[in-house]
């Protein structure tokens, strides 16, 4: 029980470090495994396992607030099972797999729930209730973290075979549907953003960005630089046009003065 609580706490800390502390890399296996080792009484094994798991997950980035479930949950449970059952890291990681699947499922669920709360937040904003927005921001961070505490607690106290049966009990098509929905949701966010930027004359640049990303598979920086070429070129054209207009209106006012002169 005590072990389950402590592992849950580490899950909480790892998750909260990402959502509420600006992602200081506490969620990485190197740190998470050390903490698991510390609370389970075998610091050295924890640190060593952290080193090997960090190597395994070095390529797994989970950039930009995407919940770091895979490397984090894998590292925490892999290390915990290794220490608790005195097994090697490979077996321990295999034991962690069902818990990893469960946490991906729960992550998608949380994502859909949190997305569906956005209209509520827009309601707060419409009424100017910024305190409620702050409360929401902190509240969701804590709820995400608390959910991970529960996964950690249940994972250790029930063991991986019980978690396996929970995972088996969730119908595969429900899992798939949830994944699909959370894959489509960014489309709405981007559509709203696009609506704010929409200008008929420059809308065609949407296609440029899309084609560069889809067909040429260019990195963002390269796409941004190409867009910058167009943007800067347009800006200079625009400035020239403005100067031109200004000088013309200047001439026009001169003319009108002359006309007035003749009118007299």
């Amino acid at each position, binding site marked *: 029980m005590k072990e389950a609580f402590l592992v849950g706490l580490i899950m909480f800390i790892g998750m909260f470090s990402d959502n509420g502390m600006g992602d200081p890399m506490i969620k990485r296996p190197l740190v998470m495994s050390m903490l698991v080792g510390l609370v389970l009484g075998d610091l050295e094994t924890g640190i060593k396992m*952290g080193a090997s798991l960090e190597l395994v997950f070095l390529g797994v980035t989970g950039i930009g607030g995407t919940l770091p479930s895979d490397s984090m949950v894998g590292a925490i449970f892999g290390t915990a099972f290794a220490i608790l059952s005195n097994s090697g890291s490979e077996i321990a990681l295999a034991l962690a797999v069902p818990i990893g699947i469960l946490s991906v499922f729960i992550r998608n669920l949380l994502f859909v729930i949190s997305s569906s709360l956005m209209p509520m937040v827009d309601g707060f904003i419409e009424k100017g209730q910024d305190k409620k927005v702050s409360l929401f921001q902190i509240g969701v961070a804590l709820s995400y973290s608390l959910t991970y505490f529960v996964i950690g607690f249940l994972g250790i106290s029930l063991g991986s075979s019980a978690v396996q049966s929970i995972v088996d009990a969730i119908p595969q098509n429900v899992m798939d549907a*949830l994944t699909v929905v959370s894959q489509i949701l960014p489309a709405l966010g981007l559509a709203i953003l696009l609506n704010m930027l929409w200008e008929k004359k420059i809308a065609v640049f949407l296609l440029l960005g899309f084609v560069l*990303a889809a067909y040429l598979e260019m990195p963002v920086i390269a796409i941004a630089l190409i867009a910058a070429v167009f943007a800067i070129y347009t*800006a200079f054209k625009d400035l020239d046009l403005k100067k031109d207009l200004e000088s013309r209106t200047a001439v026009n006012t001169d003319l009108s003065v002359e006309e007035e002169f003749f009118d007299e």
Partner: protein
Amino acid sequence: MNNKQISKEEKKLLNKVFWRSFLIYGSYNPMRASGIGFLYAIMPFINKYYIKEDERIKAMQRNAEYYNITSAISTFPMGIIASMEKENSATGKFDSYSINAIKASLMGPLSGIGDSFFWGTFRVIAAGIGIGLAEQGSILGPLLFLLLYNIPAIAARYYGTFLGYGLGEKYIKEAYEKGIISTLTKAAGILGITMVGAMIYTTIGLQTGLKFNLSGMEYNLQDILDQVLKGILPLSATMICFFFVRKKVSASKIMLGIIVVGAALSLIGLL
């Protein structure tokens, strides 16, 4: 950029932005990414400078849209936008469009730079050193890893706040005074829309796994779709949402539609 121009009061507000920015991913979700986090972080500026309630609400609304950026450098655009909002509150010079365009145009390139610096470079160097020590069971491994990563990350976060604000104060104000803000807005709009186009492909991971048999040959629907237009599913999903947004259908209704249609398409095996 001259820090002397930043008053004590502004410094205080910028410090608040710095601290609040740590929570930027707090309510991260696929629909808005860290949009609400962005608003949360620059809220002190909006509250301070917008006196008229309807203008304050408008400022809140435009800063709550989709936003995604590397956490460590998130304060740089926050600083720029804070300076624009402050200027706008006093003079009403910037419309929502120019603030949004500049915000959106910074998101892609800054995230690209931020991710490659912090995720690609600092993290990998820190991990390399940390792993070496941790392999021998030394606690210095994880600790050094945290230090090596976080010193540059927190420094960038802190100085980014002031750098962004200073740049906004100096150049964007100047741009306005010279009457070239509309030009800047147009340029930022081009950059912003191009990046949205790219993000449609990179952030929406929609694919179909449907396979079917035609006279003994197995066809993969995704392959056929790719031949028509690569990324046709993410693009159509966005354009359909965009169509409804233009029709002023509320976001919650569109979202309900996404959940129902997405789940249905998944259940019948199309997606």
